[in-house]
């Protein structure tokens, strides 16, 4: 029987964060992954603080978290065949994240067709109804170099980065 999208996603899930050195450096963890949606957590860490006076996480952590979560939702929304590149990412920073609290991004691919995927996401620090930030992003499957395409095919097939 052919592998379902959810089975494929379950198999690739570890790769989608661990395979990205920047996501690893920021300590992101994937908490949920389904067809066209992704939930990802950024831990509160002293070394990711942006304003030492307030202890608030740097906006860049939220930017990277939203970009990564949106990218995974787009990847899933497009059928988990190709790794899409971010075309644009627009973020509203609604309030500072509370010092000491992790930030969670919930991303949903609202439309994926052909090469393009549109994603919306929010980031919150515990209460979904009181978000820290919201984001809207567009992704596109770009034509990779033949070398990158071969590596990506192999990664999807084997579930290993190299």
């Amino acid at each position, binding site marked *: 029987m052919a592998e379902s999208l959810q089975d494929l996603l379950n198999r690739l899930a570890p790769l989608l964060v661990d*395979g*990205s*050195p*920047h*996501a*690893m*450096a920021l300590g992101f963890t994937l908490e949920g992954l389904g067809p066209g949606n992704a939930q990802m957590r950024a831990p509160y860490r*002293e*070394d*990711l*603080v*942006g*304003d*030492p*006076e307030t202890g608030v*996480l*740097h*906006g*860049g*952590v939220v*930017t*990277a*978290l*939203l*970009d*990564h979560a949106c*990218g995974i939702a787009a990847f899933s929304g497009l059928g988990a065949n190709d*790794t899409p*590149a*971010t*075309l*644009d*990412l*627009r*973020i*509203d*920073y609604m309030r*500072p994240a509370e010092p000491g609290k992790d930030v969670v991004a919930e991303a949903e691919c609202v439309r994926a067709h052909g090469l393009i995927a549109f994603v919306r996401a929010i980031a919150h620090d515990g209460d979904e109804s009181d978000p820290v930030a919201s984001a809207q992003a567009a992704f596109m499957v*770009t034509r*990779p*170099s033949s070398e*990158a395409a071969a*590596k*990506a095919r192999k*990664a999807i097939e084997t579930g290993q*980065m190299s």
Partner: protein
Amino acid sequence: MSEALIETLLAAPYVAKFGIRFERKGDELTGVLPYAEHLVGNPLVPALHGGAVGAFLEVIASATLLASQPLARLPKPIDVAVDYLRPARPEDVYARAFIGRAGARVANIRAEAWQARRDAPVASLHGHFLIKPAG
């Protein structure tokens, strides 16, 4: 010029972790994000993480506001929109920001990041920051 706050910005753990620095000519700042493996988002391409480049653009936007006038505290982003124009290669990234308008509370700002060629930007940002002029 908000000298002390530029130092605060650079000393913030997140900014220091990624080694962001500025090259200054008067009130003009060029940001440098030195290449390191932990900036890579997708090792298959390989390309730097969009979030790392976006965050770097936010930092240079803040710093440019601080260099332009005395402010009482660090600028806070209200909203940003980042366009990704090319994959960022595993090399150093540079960025410069341009103030559209800085009022009494809010500043409109654009920024551009590039690598080997200044005329081939890898990403651009436009956004609004909350500011508090000193005095």
